[in-house]
């Protein structure tokens, strides 16, 4: 199997690493980049000195956002598309930072020339959200009030707060109205929140593999992840940086349990089955099954590159997201303020945010008489399917985005 294909089949691998981390299994450095890639890209950091009021009551006096952009903004500034990332994502959504990068950005399957979010037509903006650990202001940043890193004092950020910061970003880039705001999973929640907070600042919201609110089971998984982190002796109440420590073990466990929820029983079964590293049982407690060593490996790699406080914050943002809450738990009433058109996509084997969750969202949109299209894509990859270019997914997504491009004259 070609290495590139291997990557596509295991998108979780994809999400794990910030660019630049090398792995033996990937192909050696290419001489040229694929023709449907946005090519070499450079992130940039924008500083915002206006305070940002937050849902928790606090406010951020100033902050940085790291972004990448692909394609060209047209003269009317009508062709801009905002990409919102999921739990462990970041600004590097497409292309390569250096020729020596072994893999492209996390959503390269969908962003680029001729891809669903076609950079020949759209100006694509991707950012690392506040509270993240890839350059935007977050728990690892310095608190201007104390001169020390924020750590656990960094305020809990909600999806609404992210959308407010993204609106400030849009202002800075001269974008009054997005052609589309697009996201998968937690990113889809941001797209949905955009339609409610700034109804006149987007034409389309694309909500993929997402949900209008977490279920008790979703929250339960997040709680296990948080407990894994906070019970690590190296956590020091979140002040591990001051103690020159890292709650690596807790973060590893958190990622292992999260990772299971991103895959499906079928896709794990196909990849690992009951395969063992050695033939005979050892009657011990080391990793004997391939799936065990895979999870340990993924968890450990993740713990080397991700911040524990950011992980806590992201899971909390997921838990709190509930646009119906402000409308007496009536999602349709909440959605009645939206003006944009919606595309909602779900995946048949996604058990983290099942098709039923998307259908609940679509039902409320229909009741609110919003314009919505919905498809359930048959794909075996579980929640991670939104990162994998399944033909039907790409066809539907492309058809919709082509129409958006026509509409905005891109």
């Amino acid at each position, binding site marked *: 199997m070609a290495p590139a294909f291997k990557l596509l089949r295991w998108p979780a691998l994809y999400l794990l690493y910030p660019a630049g981390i090398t792995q033996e299994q990937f192909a050696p450095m290419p001489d040229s980049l694929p023709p449907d890639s946005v090519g070499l890209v450079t992130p940039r950091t924008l500083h915002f000195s206006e305070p940002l009021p937050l849902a928790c009551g606090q406010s951020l006096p100033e902050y940085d956002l790291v972004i990448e952009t692909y394609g060209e903004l047209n003269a009317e500034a009508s062709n801009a598309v905002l990409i919102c990332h999921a739990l462990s994502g970041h600004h590097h959504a497409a292309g390569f930072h250096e020729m020596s990068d072994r893999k492209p950005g996390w959503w390269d399957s969908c962003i680029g020339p001729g891809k669903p979010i076609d950079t020949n037509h759209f100006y694509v903006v991707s950012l690392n959200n506040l509270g993240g650990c890839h350059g935007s202001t977050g728990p690892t940043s310095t608190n201007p009030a104390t001169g020390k890193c924020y750590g656990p004092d960094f305020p809990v950020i909600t999806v609404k707060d992210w959308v407010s910061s993204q609106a400030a970003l849009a202002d800075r880039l001269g974008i009054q109205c997005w052609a589309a705001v697009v996201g998968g999973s937690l990113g889809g929640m941001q797209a949905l929140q955009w339609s409610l907070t700034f109804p006149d600042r987007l034409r389309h919201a694309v909500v993929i593999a997402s949900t209008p609110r977490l279920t008790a089971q979703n929250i339960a998984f997040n709680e296990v992840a948080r407990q894994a982190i906070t019970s690590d002796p190296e956590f020091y109440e979140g002040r591990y940086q001051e103690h020159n420590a890292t709650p690596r073990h807790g973060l590893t466990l958190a990622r292992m349990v999260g990772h299971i929820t991103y895959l499906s029983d079928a896709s794990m079964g196909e990849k690992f089955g009951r395969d063992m590293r050695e033939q005979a049982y050892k009657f011990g407690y080391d990793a004997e099954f391939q799936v065990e060593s895979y999870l340990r490996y993924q968890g450990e790699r993740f713990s080397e590159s991700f911040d524990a406080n950011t992980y806590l914050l992201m899971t909390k943002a997921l838990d709190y997201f509930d646009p119906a809450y402000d409308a007496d738990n009536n999602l349709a009433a909440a959605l009645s303020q939206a003006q944009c058109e919606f595309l909602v996509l779900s995946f048949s084997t996604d058990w983290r945010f099942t098709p039923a969750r998307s259908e609940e969202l679509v039902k409320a949109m229909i009741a609110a*008489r919003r*314009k919505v*299209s919905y498809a*359930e894509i048959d794909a075996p990859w579980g929640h991670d399917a939104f990162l994998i270019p399944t033909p039907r997914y790409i066809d*539907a997504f492309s058809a919709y985005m082509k129409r958006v491009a026509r509409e905005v004259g891109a």
Partner: protein
Amino acid sequence: MRADLEIIEKWIQPNSHVLDLGCGDGTLLDYLQRERQATGFGLEINPEHITTCMGRGVCVIEQDMDEQGLGNFENQSFDVVLMTQALQAVRRPDVVLDEMLRLGRECIVTFPNFAYWRLRWYLMRNGRMPESETLPYKWYNTPNIHLCTFNDFEALCYRKNIKIKNRTVVDGEHRYRWFNRLWPNMLGQIAIYRITR
């Protein structure tokens, strides 16, 4: 534009909110949106059709009404509910009719007439289940599991207290012909009914 769709279009008031059950590639909804400023949704299960709808700006919902029902739509939430050439393919046409009238003030239904003289002749001459251009399937692989005649449909409407506001009968190519109207249940191939409660 297919002739039957043109007839349907005339029955739809401007700015209507429309639900099209089995909307295909969205031709009718697209037309109604442009010519009648209609809004609304199409239901479809064919992936290619769904993609086509998305590409042309027709709101399409992937939903199998036979499997999932129509419970996600609210009572009287549409001006018109349409179903073209699908009534004979659902598991319970009577239940679907009730559901359509629950959702819409008015419904438009089209279906093929199993009492068309050629089908009657086919059955009488061959003693085999009729096949025709409109119904090109074998008895064992046909999606049309509930074929009926115009008279059957009208009897059902009578039993259910459904009012028939209009009926138009066309031929297999959806053309208006004088002889279709002469003796519809014998000479008509496809009927377009406009019904309400």
